[in-house]
């Protein structure tokens, strides 16, 4: 049994920063498996001297693991703490992979819905709207709106999850539950939808509405038609089809 050990702030910071590269070798077989071992490597080196114990510790992180890359910070923090306990003999080594297996899938679902499904569209649309309503302003405002809003939430969430995971591996589920992420997801999606409508109207105004009404009406028809056919054709083919139809109409009426 290794002597009692507690990771210092520098090592925890190092592990957290390495977690920003979790997906570098993402693959369909093990997904983030090698990434997880990479993230924890400095900690495992601190716990175990070079030799079979270190190899065994690394090998238990090479099993399949998949989570949302941001919410994985909580699992990384929790696994880090559990590795300390394993080294001190407080819990069996199997507790670490079991912990990762238990938290990975539900956290992946939560993160996908919140970050990919709500926050990114909403902040992207906010940035687009800034770019459209203030075309004479510096483009940096559009960039600052999008990246500033998104990353303020993203990075603080990652840091918070990592800290909570490390402080209390078992309590991180409760801490995340107290944030009511599904409620926030629903609210942010409603905001994103409103912003999408505002973007469409701003483009119509920029295109001449209400003076050149025919342009706006034509564009509105394309929006509705595209909304209907997008699930069948996908964005790529729908966009190319719209471009082709627009060019044909323009050439024919020119």
């Amino acid at each position, binding site marked *: 049994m290794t002597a009692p050990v507690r990771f210092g702030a520098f090592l925890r910071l190092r592990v957290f920063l390495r977690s920003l590269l979790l997906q570098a*070798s993402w693959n369909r*077989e093990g997904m983030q498996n090698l990434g997880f071992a990479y993230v924890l490597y400095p900690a495992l080196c601190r716990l175990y001297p070079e030799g079979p114990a270190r190899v065994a510790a690394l090998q238990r992180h090479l099993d399949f693991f998949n989570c949302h890359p941001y919410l994985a910070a909580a699992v990384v923090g929790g696994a880090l703490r559990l590795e300390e306990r394993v080294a001190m003999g407080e819990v069996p080594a199997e507790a670490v992979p079991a912990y990762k297996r238990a938290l990975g899938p539900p956290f992946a679902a939560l993160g996908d819905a919140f970050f990919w*499904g709500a926050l990114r569209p909403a902040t992207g649309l906010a940035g687009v709207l800034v770019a459209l309503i203030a075309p004479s302003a510096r483009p940096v405002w559009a960039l600052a709106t*999008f990246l500033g809003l998104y990353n303020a939430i993203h990075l603080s969430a990652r840091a918070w999850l990592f800290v909570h995971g490390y402080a209390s591996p078992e309590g991180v589920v409760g801490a995340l539950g107290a944030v009511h992420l599904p409620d926030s997801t629903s609210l942010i999606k409603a905001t994103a939808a409103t912003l999408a409508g505002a973007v469409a109207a*701003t483009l119509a105004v920029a295109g001449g509405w209400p003076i050149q009404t025919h342009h706006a009406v034509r564009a509105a028809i394309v929006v509705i038609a595209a*909304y209907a056919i997008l699930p069948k054709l996908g964005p790529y083919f729908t966009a190319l089809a719209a*471009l082709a139809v627009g060019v044909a109409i323009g050439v024919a009426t020119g």
Partner: protein
Amino acid sequence: MTRAVQLAIAAVIGGAAAVERKGALQLMLSRPLALGPLLGAALGDVRGGLTIGVPLELLFLGAVNLGATLPDNETIAASCAVAAAVLAGQDTHIGVDETTATLAIALFLPTAVLGRRLERLTEGINRRLAARARATIAAQPARAIRLHLGGLLAPFLAGAAYTGIAAALAPFLAALRRGLDHHLVQGLEIGWIFFLAVCCASAVRAIRDARAPSFAAMASGAIALVTLAVKILHWRSP
């Protein structure tokens, strides 16, 4: 700045963006809305980059990497279209107008699909890296773990190659733009409006919420009515 330097800058930024998209950080610097102006600024036309970044952001707003699913690669499409359009705009001295932007998007949108296929290949390379790490970890643990970072190389090279080639094709895009007659220019301008309309529809679809169409319709209707009311008041005022 010479053209060779511009090509090198475009390639490096394209490669870095391809890495940032999934393998590292994920700060959304590789999204079209961010990448467009950043790459545009590096090549000398930030506004031109934004002109292309905005619609591509809307079009690919729903491009989500859920588990093993792979969406079209919006980063490669954006870096290629922006690099080619900005450099072509400099060649024609017109900048990135709607016609140049439409041409660049029509030419380079297919790279989104090619990029997705390339990502599948990258996953195959990563699978082999992980297998090699597993096989060698007992003998050389430090080296086995470092293999993880090797997964960043393929996306970087792919992004750099695509963007570099697109930037090198800018003179071709410029020649195409110069050779357009009046009818085609008008056609491309209407094509641009239709493309923007599809982008808006795609943005609403991206939200994946049953309430999204109603909320979007209400917001756009309200803004259209307010604009109409303001115009009417303006016309009536002496």
